[in-house]
């Protein structure tokens, strides 16, 4: 377990205090994610880029260093740098379709 690195803007708190505040919230979200994966298993067809992106992000949760949210968002981001000629949709899907 890494050494706690409190941010300058954060009041000091223990991991127990963080768990007291947020464990149940994290618990139900993890169970919801598990239920979503089970639901996918019961459904027909293949997996699109969104589901592949979600599965690719799961190992990042277990990394030890802080910054997991940013690493997941970066994983799902379009890595290109130039404007595109034209869009074929107004919407974003949540995961860059080119993610392998």
């Amino acid at each position, binding site marked *: 377990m890494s050494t706690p690195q409190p*941010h*300058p*803007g*954060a*009041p000091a*708190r223990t991991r127990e205090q963080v768990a007291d*505040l*947020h464990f149940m*919230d994290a618990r139900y979200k993890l169970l919801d994610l598990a239920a979503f994966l089970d639901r996918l298993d019961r459904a027909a067809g293949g997996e699109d880029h969104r589901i592949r992106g979600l599965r690719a992000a799961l190992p990042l949760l277990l990394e030890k260093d802080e*910054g997991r*949210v*940013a690493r997941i*968002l*970066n994983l*799902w*981001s*379009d*890595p*290109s*740098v130039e*404007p*595109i*000629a*034209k*869009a074929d*949709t*107004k*919407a*974003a*899907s*949540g*995961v*860059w*379709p080119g993610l392998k």
Partner: protein
Amino acid sequence: MRYIEPHGHMVSRTTDDYQAMALAGCAAICEPAFWAGFDRKSADGFYDYFCQLTQIEPKRAAKYGLPHYSWLCINPKESEDMALAADVLALIPEFLKAPTVLGIGEIGLNKNTRNEMKVLEQHIALAVRHDQMILVHTPHLEDKRKGTRLIMDCLKANGVVKPERVIIDHVEEHTIHEVLDQGFWAGITLYPESKSTPVRAVDMIESVSAQRVWLNSACDWGHSDPLSVPKAAQEMRRRGHSAAAIDRLVYGNPVKFLSQSPRFQDPAAQA
């Protein structure tokens, strides 16, 4: 508790929302122009919308004791149509004379296209020409990081825009540091699913120097919560942040940024 809602699309909300926001401590609301959920067919639709933002909505808010301000533009989702964009841009100077207009916004990118970029450049030039502040919309989800970088490059390429007069909204964990490092203000939008939740927003606040950050609900016709700013304040309180720190973030910071426009009046100074 007092707070400013610096980004709410109140034309999409009911009067019950105004009532709830006032009861929760809201002291003023700012409303950037945005996408109506469908593409408008002509500049006439935007003319009516700008009248709604500058004339109708301030009266509706006033019934709940809330000052209402607005920002004007054609949003990036309708910027693919360059001819329409040109017609709408031509309308804006007339409305900039309205006493509650704070600047140009929310401009930016949606899918990071070349046409969106051209219209963004035209909006920035318009803001510079009329000495207006800028409120920026950054793209959604997988398009956000690329779009945020393109927008900042575009703002810097103009050469005249002062970063401290620009707020780049909808930042998340992977974009907030770059935005602040380049001298811009950063807006964290609190949404139930996309963008940031109140809990994640407070995590971000705890990880940066929050002197140039504001929180907003961006409540509109979609899945959104007009009370998300006070809910984030409640999350800060639960974590032990002081009342002064909370007030600085949800009231002081937006007042500081918005007061760069002579039109904006600090509600506390009016009391």
